Structures are given as structure tokens and as C-alpha cells.
């Protein structure tokens, strides 16, 4: 396995009185796309939030580019070049599409060629450029949330269920966009329920269950082993979607 850009070792996370993560082990290889799979409630979202510093790990270590970022404030994690697309998308509804993207481009006005590429993938964003983002449809909000994460070059993208509510044509666009990012030396960690999507994009797979990471594999090997999928996810990739 290539050198890991991001690694989690024995990460435990408590939310209030609840003990949610019980020793998560995760390696995200540099330049690849890692899929984080698991049943509902397995702890995938909690893992991403812990990496971002939105929940604080109570034990264990999160390392990024060899550096311990476990105790870093969220803003400082982001400043290392890590972008986060939450499950809820968290677009700013009262801000226009333009303002959402301007804010996300932290180092200055968005670059024209980058915007052009985003518009080519997600034409709706150009059309509704000056509209409050709250008026976008669910799928359009998802496009905006992804666009916000890639408006500037990033080292690592954390994306929670990017295809939720998207039409097939846009999913294809999303796949192309992620491939392009990967070719441009961006590393991705993607939580996904859409197995067809996961299989087409993922290089490596980590499966979670009940707050633990229970399996690490290459996507090819995992996709080939139906019994394993059945046991870990409760259904096989071929029967779903």
C-alpha cells in the first residue's frame, strides 16, 4: 500500500455520554480514493467529523502528512488543505450560490478556469448563480456542496454520501469530477451507500460496523467477494442498485 496521507490509530470518540467510536483504524493512501462503507449507524459520519475536529477524539491519534492533528481546531484542520462535504451538505441557504463559493475559496477570488470546470460539470450552479442557495433543489445543493469543496486545490476531500438524491446523469458527472480530482493529485475519502458508485470509483475499501473498522481491502478484491459483502454490509453489491 502507498504511503498513507491520512491515518487513524485507535481513535475513540464520545458524543456527550455516548461512546460512539471504539478504536477506528484507517489508512487513506496518498493520491487514491478510499471508500468508507458500513451499515447505517456504523459510525462513518462520526469518523469524518472526528477527522475534521468537529468531534474530539478521546483516545487514539489522527495523523495527516505525518503530523498529529488530533487536537487541532477545525479551522486549522481545514487550513491544512482538507475539505469536508457533510452528509447534510450544510450549504448556506441565505447566501447566494456565488457567495457560497466565494466564501469557500479562502485564499482569494475563485479562479475562472476552476469555475468553468465546475460549471461544465454542474451547469445548474451557473444558472442559479445569484439565487439564495436555499432555493436550490436537493440535488443542486449537493452539487454546490461538492463545488464548494473543490473550488480551490485541496490535499484531501472528505465527502459524506455525495450521491444522495442525485439523478443518474448527475451521478455520472460526479464520478467524472472525482476521477479528475484524483488525476490532479487530490486524495479522497468518501462515505457511500450507492454501491455501484462506490465500486466504480474506489481504489481501497474500509468497512465499519458498530463504531469499529472491521475490514480493509482493495476495491477489486472486495467487489469480487460476495459472501464478504453479505456478511459486512448485509447485502451484496450486485443486488443493491
Amino acid at each position, binding site marked *: 500500500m502507498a504511503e498513507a496521507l491520512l491515518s487513524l490509530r485507535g481513535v475513540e470518540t464520545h458524543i456527550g455520554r455516548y461512546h460512539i467510536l471504539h478504536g477506528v483504524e484507517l489508512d487513506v493512501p496518498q493520491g487514491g480514493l478510499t471508500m468508507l462503507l458500513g451499515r447505517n449507524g456504523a459510525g462513518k459520519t462520526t469518523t469524518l467529523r472526528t477527522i*475534521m475536529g468537529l468531534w474530539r477524539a478521546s483516545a487514539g491519534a489522527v495523523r495527516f502528512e505525518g503530523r498529529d492533528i488530533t487536537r487541532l481546531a477545525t*479551522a486549522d484542520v481545514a487550513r491544512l488543505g482538507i475539505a469536508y462535504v457533510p452528509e447534510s451538505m*450544510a450549504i448556506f441557504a*441565505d447566501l447566494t450560490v456565488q457567495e457560497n463559493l*466565494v*466564501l469557500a475559496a*479562502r485564499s482569494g*477570488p475563485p479562479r475562472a478556469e476552476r469555475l468553468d470546470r465546475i460549471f461544465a460539470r454542474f451547469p445548474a450552479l451557473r444558472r442559479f448563480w445569484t439565487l439564495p442557495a436555499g432555493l436550490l433543489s436537493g440535488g443542486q445543493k449537493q452539487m454546490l456542496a461538492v463545488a464548494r469543496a473543490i473550488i480551490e486545490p485541496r490535499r484531501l476531500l472528505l465527502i459524506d454520501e455525495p450521491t444522495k438524491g442525485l439523478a443518474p446523469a448527475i451521478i455520472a458527472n460526479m464520478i467524472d469530477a472525482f476521477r479528475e480530482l484524483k488525476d490532479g493529485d487530490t486524495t479522497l475519502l468518501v462515505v457511500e451507500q450507492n454501491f455501484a458508485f462506490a465500486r466504480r470509483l474506489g481504489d481501497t475499501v474500509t468497512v465499519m460496523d458498530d463504531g469499529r473498522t472491521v475490514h480493509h481491502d482493495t476495491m477489486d478484491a472486495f467487489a469480487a467477494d460476495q459472501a464478504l459483502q453479505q456478511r459486512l454490509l448485509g447485502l451484496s453489491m450486485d443486488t443493491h442498485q
Partner: protein
Amino acid sequence: MMPATETTSPPLRPSGAPPHAARGEEGPPPVRARRDIVPLLLVPALMLAALPLVGSPASWVTLSVAGLAMGLMIFVMASGLTLTFGLMDVLNFGHGAFIAVGAFVAASVMLAMGPWMGSDSLWLNLAAVAPAILAAMVLSGLLGWGFERVIVKPVYGQHLKQILVTMGGLIVAEQLLKVVWGPDQITLTRPPALRGAFIIGDVAIEKYRVLAVAVGLVVFVVMQLALGRTRIGLLVRAGVENSEMVEALGYRIGRVFVGVFVVGSALAGLGGALWALYQETVTAAIGAQVMVLIFIVIIIGGLGSVGGCFVGALLVGLVANYIGFLAPKVALGSNILLMALVLLWRPQGLYPVARR
């Protein structure tokens, strides 16, 4: 890592045109948003409705100007509070202390400048009032900074504690004011330049009310420009909706919050100074007295919305003056009734802020 350039980036393109839209290429035309101006129209509607009730046009003009002046002073005091609530969910009952401090500081400075205040020269009058207002804003802002660090910060995210602790802060501040300025009310007289009225036909418009309206409008316009056209403003508006996501984009929202808190406190001080000059008396209870109106205003407006706070303040000021004239006995309850009516129509306030 990218350098932090929040403060130096150029402002947003005000035109808001999509980039390269001029090429006229593929796709349907851009879609534009319509502004929700119905709440804004309530202000002229209320004024028109009051005209036949009041009867005499001269009294109506006087009452309307008085209402707008009162409304705008309340807006100046309330605007900071609505933003701090929106940004950090902080219910700051101590806000009244900043108003009171502003009123006392301004009064003291003006009393110390007695001869200039009494002079017939407009310039000497202004030379006394301007530093008084400035001092009020600076001291209230400083107090706000200390209040945020010592009292509010430890209770972020805990509403019940916030209410108790900031209420306590208000009570302590009130007692301290009595210690510093004595228990009696302070009386001051407006300088000659701000006394009297403009007479147009049979209509009299008090000069000071015109000044209060002007100051309030300037504060509103500057705030709207700062919120709408600058990067800091963009951060504040985004933070009001979802401060966690603003952090995840790499901005340290805590600093923005302290800045907003200090500016809000300074504005409260400005409002307190204006109010003191308006009433020509200052007591330690001034903060607690206006806080009721301020809470009504920010609830009517929609918690976190500056535009809503503006409209809400104008409505409250106008209603207070019209009802005070038409039916003085029910004047006290009239603003509560106004709030109830607005909330029946829009339960989240006039301009609800999208929250996560």
C-alpha cells in the same frame, strides 16, 4: 498552506453576474431572486393606517417622526444583540448594561463640557456631543469585550446558564453604575443646536428626532454594506446560519464573534447615548427598561436578521407613538400585541434566518 487573506481579499463583485455569462452559450438564462419586501411595506402601511385614526395631519407627522426616531434608536441598540444571538446562539441579557454605560458616559462627558454644551455655536455644541458619543462607544465596546471573555465565553452553547449568568451580569453592572455615578438620576439638557423644532407650515418636527433618524439610517446602511459587500460580512452571515461549517471552511469563527460582540456593544453604547440625550435624564435602570423593547424587536425581526431588526424597530417605535397618542392606557401592552400579531403571521419573525 495558503496564507490567511480574509481581510485583504477584494470585495465581491456587486453585479453578481455569472462569470462568462456574456458568451451567450448553452443553457437556459440565469434565474434571479426576488426580494421579500412585504415586511418592509408594513412600515408605510402602518403609517397610512394611522393617518385617519390620528386625524390631524400635523399631529400625524409629529407622531410619525417621533416613532421613526424612537424606532431607529432602538434599532441601533438592538442590532448587535440580534447578530450575537444569530452567530453564537448567545442570549445576552447583559446587553442592557452596555446601553446604560453608554448613556452614563455620554452624560458625564457632556456635563463636563458644560460651557460648550450651553453655547449658541453649533460647532461648539457638536464639539461637546461628538466626543461624548465617541467615549460612550469606546467604553461600551471595551466593556463588551470584557463581558464576552469573562461572562459569556464560559457558557457558550448552554442557554439556561447564559440567561442566568448574563442576567446576573446586568444586575451587577447596574449596581456598579450606582456606585460610580451615584444613586440619583442624572439630568442633562440638550445643547441649543439640538433643541427646538423645524416648523414647516403647521407641522413641527423636533430637530433632535431628525438627528436620531439620520444616525440610525447611517448605522443601518453601513451595516448592510458591511454585511453584504465585504468578506467579513459574508463570514458573519454564513456564521449566523451554520458556524460549524464556516469553521470547516477554515475560518476561525470565534474571532469573528468577538469582533461582532464588541461592535454590537459599541452600538449599544451609541444607542444609550442617543437615548440619554432624547430623554434628557439617565438612571441606572435605563438598560433594563429598554431591554424589553429590544427583545420584542429582535423577536419580531427574526433572531439573527439585521434587516428584520430594522423593520421590527420601526414598527415598534411607530406603534408606541401612535397608541400612546390614541389610547395611552393600552400603550404598554401595544408592543406585545404587535409581537403576537407578527408571530401569528410569521412564527419565525419577519425575516427568518435559515438555521441548520
